[in-house]
């Protein structure tokens, strides 16, 4: 959002009563996609982390399927490096929605040899991939709905709503199915599967405006709080036992919030006094860096996300 733009935005007087505003437009598109998934796949699942995008995803699922139950379980890959606040929220929200939550742990995948860490590899980012693929295999899921958005990252910008994965779970950007109108090709052969991204057209701002409109609860770490932070790789990261601060590293107690949630060891903290959703919306409107600017896992190389997606990352 450009700086200096004042909110609230002007009301367009030419808008007729039969016109949807931007959130209603995005919402109906996403609901349509969710219902296509329910109708076309035998064993779909929704990836639910407790993060802001997947919170919206579950509200859209409610909008698509109520008064029936949401006709698919929720799946989360727990890296073991999650923020505890996030897991608490995830479990509670799943119960509130009456949904079945399946959690598969990277820890267990390492123990059983499904995921093999490189010597000295601390990050669980890469190890999520085999863990997810094993879960898809275990439950024979033919479709996984994810909360990825195209505005997050350049490789995501090329993703389809219905993103085909071969029997190795791989994405082939050069061989994507053309996606025309709102007619989605959901056909897969046994062993292959589909990743579906109903939030593809949503931006970070849309997500927060929707959270506001829908009065959705989000984990407390999105709001301003005090936390011990360590300066590392040009960012402030939470102090943890997983990677304790070294002697020469600067440690500080700060008033921060998270803008995007990854693992606790790689999620950059932003100094912020934002206590409410309105504060966050105002903060994003004035922001000068993108959301993923605070994610160390994307900075590895210009093609970091592209490489992970090809291997089966969500």
């Amino acid at each position, binding site marked *: 959002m450009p700086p200096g733009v004042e909110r609230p935005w002007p009301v367009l007087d030419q808008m007729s009563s039969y016109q949807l*505003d931007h*959130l209603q437009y995005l919402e109906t598109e996403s609901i349509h996609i969710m219902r296509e998934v329910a109708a076309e796949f035998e064993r779909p699942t929704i990836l639910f982390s407790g993060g802001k995008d997947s919170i919206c995803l579950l509200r859209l699922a409610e909008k698509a399927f109520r008064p029936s139950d949401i006709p698919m379980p929720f799946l989360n890959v727990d890296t073991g490096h999650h923020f505890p606040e996030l897991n608490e929220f995830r479990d509670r929200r799943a119960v509130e929605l009456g949904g079945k939550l399946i959690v598969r742990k990277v820890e267990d995948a390492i123990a059983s040899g499904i995921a093999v860490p490189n010597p000295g590899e601390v990050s669980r980012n890469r190890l999520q991939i085999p863990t997810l693929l094993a879960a898809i295999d275990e439950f024979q899921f033919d479709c996984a709905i994810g909360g990825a958005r195209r505005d997050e990252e350049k490789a995501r910008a090329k993703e389809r709503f219905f993103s085909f994965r071969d029997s190795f779970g791989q994405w082939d950007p050069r061989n994507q199915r053309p996606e025309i109108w709102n007619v989605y090709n959901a056909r897969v052969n046994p062993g292959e599967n589909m990743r579906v991204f109903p939030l593809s057209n949503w931006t970070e701002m849309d997500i927060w405006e929707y959270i506001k409109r829908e009065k959705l609860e989000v984990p407390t770490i999105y709001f301003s709080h005090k936390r011990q932070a360590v300066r590392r790789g040009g960012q402030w990261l939470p102090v943890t036992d997983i990677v304790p601060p070294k002697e020469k590293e600067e440690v500080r107690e700060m008033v921060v919030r998270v803008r995007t949630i990854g693992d606790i060891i790689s999620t950059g903290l932003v100094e912020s006094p934002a206590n409410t959703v309105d504060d966050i919306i105002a903060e994003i409107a004035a922001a000068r860096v993108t959301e993923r600017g605070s994610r160390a896992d994307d900075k590895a190389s210009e093609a970091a996300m592209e490489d992970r997606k090809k291997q089966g990352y969500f």
Partner: protein
Amino acid sequence: MSVHPVEILRFNTCGSVDDGKSTLIGRLLYDSKNLMEDQIEALERSADITGGGQINLANLTDGLRAEREQGITIDVAYRYFATPRRKFIVADTPGHVQYTRNMVTGASTANMSVVLVDARLGVIEQTRRHSYLAALLGIPHVVFAVNKMDLVDWREERFREIRDDIEAFLPKLGVLKDVKFIPISALNGDNVVEPSPQTPWYQGPTLLGHLETVHIASDWDLTAFRMPVQWVNRPNNPKDHSLHDFRGLSGQVARGLVKTGDSVMVLPAGIKTTVKEIWTYDGVVQEAFAPQSVTIRLQDDLDVSRGDMIVGLENLPGMSSELRAHVCWMNSRPLQKGKKYFLKHAAQTVQAVVTNLDNRMNIQTFEPEAEPAELVMNSIGEIRIRTAKPLIYDGYATNRLTGSFILIEQGSNQTVGAGMLLPPTEPVKPEYQDFAI
């Protein structure tokens, strides 16, 4: 702070290789201050590595490593930006001949197409192809952005010449309703966001000004009601006893509007009934219109399933298993007479066989060539299809969502064709008019 009603405008950019599409989008983002510091930093980083120090705005949209290395755009990339007046979804669609399928993909959901023309080259085959596709796909608004005007010294005559050339062939395309021409330089930003001092002879809006103000409220057709049934909503063992008999038909309104109490018809059964309730998560509503997603409850307990369509009684759709359509072919294995495909239309997928290839469009002359042997990738022609079950449909020119289909190759499951139905010869004539128990 109140939540503001603000519209979304979707547009796609098309043009030939090197016409400057990616640069134009980069310019729109940059000049409208929608770029963030880390994006600018990343641009500067790659400028140091590959660009000899000069920032390349095209790097913003050329997202994949292969593209950056080859300096081309290989797939549709979507971008998002906003101004105080509107939100924009941009499909950046490649200009290569072999990637016409991507333009069709990017343009199929667009309110507007921005066709780039290189001022030095003028109208080339790609310009004609993209104009033709924009017309065929029924894009409501088209802008020809005559780019690189700086390289022709901002000469008004050159701009007029190109405009005249385009206007000379536009009538052959038929259905383009709203066409504009804007002289720009994407590289330098002239007439993109800010009016250019180089074009005192041009009185029209800048490209962004046009994007912000073009009237799109009437792009949806509200004249006749259509809702394909996507999903039957029937709660299993609901805790709430009032839901025991709940049976809703969920779908997205594809055309028109419907009100509680309206008489409607369920097709293909041809049974008339009444709308008892329009249910949404946020509560019961009195009316629903395109493209809202709702759940409709009917007065009578009918056997309705996915693929059926609920329609208003006026302006009935066509219903037939013998269809004629324009098809844009998207696969390296050509379309041939006698081949079988899956055809997905609205919420139903049926088997289909191509019974004839009537013609293939010559993009140079805009003349159809009769009875081609096959349609190869990126060609467009008129075909006849027979489906295993009848489709309930409108002509594509009347309504995009009930007039379009895709063809899926059996086995590989690839999406191989995009179809646009010709209008039905007659509306459906149901045998059984009224529901009777």
